[in-house]
């Protein structure tokens, strides 16, 4: 089985160092708004939920692309071919988790697990982000996150909806 990036919200402290590390690697800048993963912070409830790309089997983004600019690489990761992407944005609308977005030129960008060495995981001190093969525990926490699918809204709203759904379970009375 291939290793993938997973999130364990119960361990996330909300620091967002992953988003600084990601944007540093991908953009050469500290720009969390361009990070390929995000942290939904619920400060009042003391809880945070990472939004990550699940590299979904039968990925909605890939299916929606009219020009086959999205494909699955040898690590099971969905990657964007910048040459082929026409900037139509259908992938952005299709992703139920808000995890593919467009830059100023329209080019789609998303998490590619840094080619097998994710920068975010190395910065995650509490161990809320892991890069590993799927196991029983991961199936459970990932399942809870993937259950919250949004069919409309902008990426930020979709991420927030997932965050709220996970928060509800994570901060059960």
């Amino acid at each position: 089985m291939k290793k993938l990036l997973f999130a364990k919200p119960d361990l996330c402290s909300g620091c967002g160092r992953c988003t600084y590390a990601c944007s540093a690697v991908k953009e050469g800048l500290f720009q969390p708004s361009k990070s390929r993963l995000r942290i939904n912070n619920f400060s009042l409830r003391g809880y945070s939920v990472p939004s990550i790309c699940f590299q979904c089997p039968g990925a909605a983004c890939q299916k929606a692309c009219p020009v086959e600019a999205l494909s699955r690489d040898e690590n099971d990761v969905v990657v964007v071919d910048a040459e082929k992407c026409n900037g139509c944005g259908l992938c952005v609308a299709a992703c139920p988790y808000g995890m593919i977005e467009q830059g100023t030129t329209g080019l789609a960008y998303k998490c590619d697990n840094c080619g097998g060495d994710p920068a975010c995981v190395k910065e995650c001190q509490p161990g809320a982000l892991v890069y590993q093969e799927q196991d029983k525990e991961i199936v459970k926490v990932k399942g809870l996150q993937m259950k919250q699918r949004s069919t409309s809204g902008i990426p930020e709203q979709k991420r927030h909806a997932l965050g709220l759904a996970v928060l509800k379970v994570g901060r059960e009375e």
Partner: protein
Amino acid sequence: MKTKMNLYAGKLLVVDLTTKKITTEPLRRDWLKEYRGSWGLALRYYWEAVSPQVDPLSPENQVVIMTGTFTGTLVPMTSRTCLVSKSPQTGTILESNIGGAFGPELKLAGYDGLILKGRAESPVYLQIIDDQVTLESAVALIGKGIFETEKLLEDAIGTPEAKCLAIGPAGENQLPYAIIGADAYRQFGRGGPGALFGSKNLKGIVCRGTGAVRVADMANFQQRVTRWKQENLLSEANAWVSTDGTPGTVDMTNELGLQPTRNFTKGVNEKAVGVNGDAVNRAKIGDRACNSCPMACGKFTRINGAEMEGPEYETLVVGGSNCDINELEPVIRFNRLCDDLGLDTISCGATISLAMEMNEAGRADHGLCFGDADEYLKIVSEIAHLSTPRGRELAQGSKRLAEKYSSTDMSMEIKGLDMAAYEPRGNYGMGLAYATSERGACHLRAFLPFHETPFDLDVMSREVAEGQNHNGIKWALGFCQFWGTLDFEIMADLLSAGLGESVTAAELATTGERIWNLSRLFNLRAGFSAKDDALPEKVMKRKLEKGPHAGRVFSQEDFETARQKYYAYRDWDENGVPSQQKLVELGLDSI
């Protein structure tokens, strides 16, 4: 167009609340080398703009909020952002400092800081979405607590990723110890910053920033950051930050006999087991961090449906041991109420404990008794809302309350700021640090509770001055107090890498000293002098009870010796005025 700056956004937002005019201005690059950021830069801007004689709550006063040089980067523990103004609680210069995520968001929106002037005609909030900045009506938010205000501001701006500053009823009522809250449980806490917003009719600020912070050479910068994080920050000496956070300190100060108990009458609380680090850890359901901090000192707790991030050490002691409240649940409820209604837990706890002692001595009865948790919880809302006669009296703070009832022998404030939770009779260094702090009895300028020779006045006077200078530049760069092993060399190395120009440890040390001396000049011109660098009567005359320092005072004579040694070390004269030579050395002679 000017080239983009490394580490800095390069401009400030200037908001005149009277005229509703919003402008931006380029950062004064000529001040950066001397003041760097945050505390230093905010102080320099404030000094330029406002007379030291200004009434803090008048429209003529200004508020400067400034991010740290490293804020908005991967340098650990650097989200911290300063507010500089004149304090409504003390009348001194005020520097108040917040963590959380507002500072980074502001810089990512394109501003190193913002300057607030004037006074709005009716309640407003400031909305910042990158370069779209507007003032909006806050009439519908008046009377609401900080938690709800933050939620409503996020809803109004239409993005849950926004970050807020907000005041509660205490700030609206301009109480001298009102806070500005952020991320629910983070505060510009001390010296009355909430009253400053209240006086300007500013209910809050909501900010969304999607921009970037750049550095000279990202690969090199990241390598340095990782190196210092791994080799220095994540070493054993700093591990307590993650494992226990500040509540672990309760047992330590108790063992050392430094724990303020029953309004600073005893140095040990035998019942502290109910409010110590273990008690907090048992109630803990998660670890919380400020933006870009890998340590996560915040302990999120829950007992019987009451949940919050905290309480921190100061609240556990000043709001716990010092009020003889020895169970965690009421302290959690007290802390949460203060955070929501907008009160500084230290000053609020200290004012309550003073009322408790006055009551016990038969001097005044506010219905508050040591150990009575019910009344202790009731009074918080009465203070914030000014809803009862006793609430209105306590809302004035401990200094005025003690004066009213001829009980200044019981109050524990300096320059009007209530003392933090370290007993100065058991540690003369802390006494001197409180007395010489520019904003009153603050523990964060020089932190010496665990020093090995706390009664050696030569060592203590030096350590206090050095600590103040060190924290001056540490704050200016945006660092948190809790990176305890951070030194000038690491700061200089990171700054050199980020800016792409050579910065020396020595010049950073001088910047820290410059910040401290400029604060001093402000206070001197505001009318403060050596006589105000004083200790409460209780510390000098009343013997401490219980523990290793039982029977001890910090006498007037010893204190005078310590203060003169401190002035001499600083090259200040016996009246606490910096020498001309010192001012020339620091470039402050013609300022």
